[in-house]
């Protein structure tokens, strides 16, 4: 599973992507738990961050599996 970071989350993690290899699919709660183990600094951003799975915003019941590209989307500011 490829996990992408954008904007200020790159600064928080110090990288633009990582690979995770969870043994089974994760719901968003489990995904965050996994991620915060590696990057405790993300906790401060969590409330504002939306997750995407394969280029679409994830719903509350979305499951993230090994083949997915998951991104952490902080508040956007395009235009």
């Amino acid at each position, binding site marked *: 599973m490829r996990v*992408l970071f*954008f*904007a200020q989350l*790159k600064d928080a993690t110090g990288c*633009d992507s990582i690979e995770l290899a969870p043994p089974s699919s994760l719901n968003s709660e489990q995904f965050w738990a996994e991620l915060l183990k590696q990057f405790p600094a993300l906790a401060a951003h969590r409330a504002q961050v939306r997750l*995407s799975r394969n*280029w*679409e*915003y994830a719903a509350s019941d979305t499951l993230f599996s090994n083949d997915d590209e998951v*991104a952490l*989307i*902080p508040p*956007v*500011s*395009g*235009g």
Partner: protein
Amino acid sequence: MEIEIQLLHEPVAEKMSPPPIGGHGAWLEFRGVVRGEENAQSISALEYEAYPEMAAREIRRLLEEISSRHPCLAARVVHRIGIIPVGETAIYVGIAASHRGEAIALLAEFMDRLKQDVPIWKRQALSSVAANVNLRISGSHQSADSHRRLQSVRSLDDALAEIHTHCQPLPAVRTPLEACFGRVLRETICASEDFPDGDRSTRDGYAILPNDESEIFRVVDTLHAADWKPRELKIGETVRVATGATLPCEHLRVLMQENVERTGDRIRILRRESASNVRRRGEELRTGEAVLQPGVKLGAGTLALLATVGGTQPLVSPRLRVCHFTTGDEIILPEQTPKPGQIRDSNSILIRNLLQKYPCHLEQAHWPEKFELAKSKISHRQSTVGDADVLLVSGGASVGEKDFTRPLLESLGFEIIFSQVNVRPGRPLIFGQKGGRIAFGLPGNPLSHFVCFHLFVAAALAKLTGGAPPEFRRGTLAAKLEDGPNPRETLWPARRDAAGLHPLAWVSSGDVTCLTETNALIRVPANRGSIESGAIVDFLPTTTE
């Protein structure tokens, strides 16, 4: 509604024409420009970052959703990414509609929603000093971050490793044997029965019991190749058998007809031989034994074996869909006569023929060297370009002003994995990925094409099809390789024959004449300089035929 979306790393065009649709009474354009002030601070530029694949999807999703309430005919959205100086356009939206009301309503709602949902970020405001520095470094093309990533030059091994990581095997398909030549087998094929399925004679002759010492035998039957007549033989009995005939029972031996004398239904042995002249049951293959492993490239011989074991619908790699585009305004058709500064296109025929080894649907075309023109050409061919497993773009990959391969690939949603490899020839190689699809921007001259194809494209095609990647081999130099030390690894064209590797003269990466002889590329390490005749070197075999 017709929708066109671009994420650009360069300035948005000053003028844009409405999309070529009829029936619109309103053409509404909006440009969002960078203000000279951000958070009450005076600035000179803003840096934008995007998640390009998702941003393009979200823009499309929003436009489709909003146009269901405010029907419009066409929309074009261009968002610039990277460092954008004050006063320049960050976003452009053009809407065509039958009447202005719908266009205005759609634009207003779209801009509101874009600022909530589309993954694009203002990264940092740059003061005048910082902006100048950053602009100089990045050539105003990319954000400082992507800039670092794009400009970092890959070593040959790193580039190959990244190609390996980013290419995934395409789903395999069951395919009839007649269409399998050149495909890569994607399953294990096992023998359906023993081969041969019984003991078979390898001679025209007479089958007898293995321990029968008789001089005279009575011929009790005659067997042709297709016969199947099981029976037990007794001492003094023999069966006349043709080459390939299945013997009437197991463990017999066959006397060659030249070594016996036949009279009526009797034969007499003239010479005894030690050979049994029998292929035993299962001698070649046992039932269930694996005869072919996944990864084998299917050729005449392997396909004959598949037919033998009844594997008539093997699981194989799909036919690749490849799009190849040439760029460069100086390129003319081979049948035209070049004016000063023009050159004939040799890359199209080169790529077409290098791809002969790979079963594929190939589409080739020329793109004008103007971003907007090329974009509109692509949008006319959206289905072809969008469906291609592999996109190859010739030319436009060096760091000149007119070069546009990289931004073009990015606007098509490709993530650029690397844009330079530290090899000669062929350094400005671009590799991009978009989901399961890949793209290469190949440096424009034929020798670079030849090298990059065998080094990088072939590696990617091997991974996509599930086949074995091209591998360097060891060989002996048959003549001295004369070169000054070069900071880049070199792939030196060579002719390989029984005597070894003969380095060929190549003047520059534009040299095409040496390609007529090249059938190997010698890998010369960086800073190595000349290599003496007789030295052991790594080389990559290539094809010329």
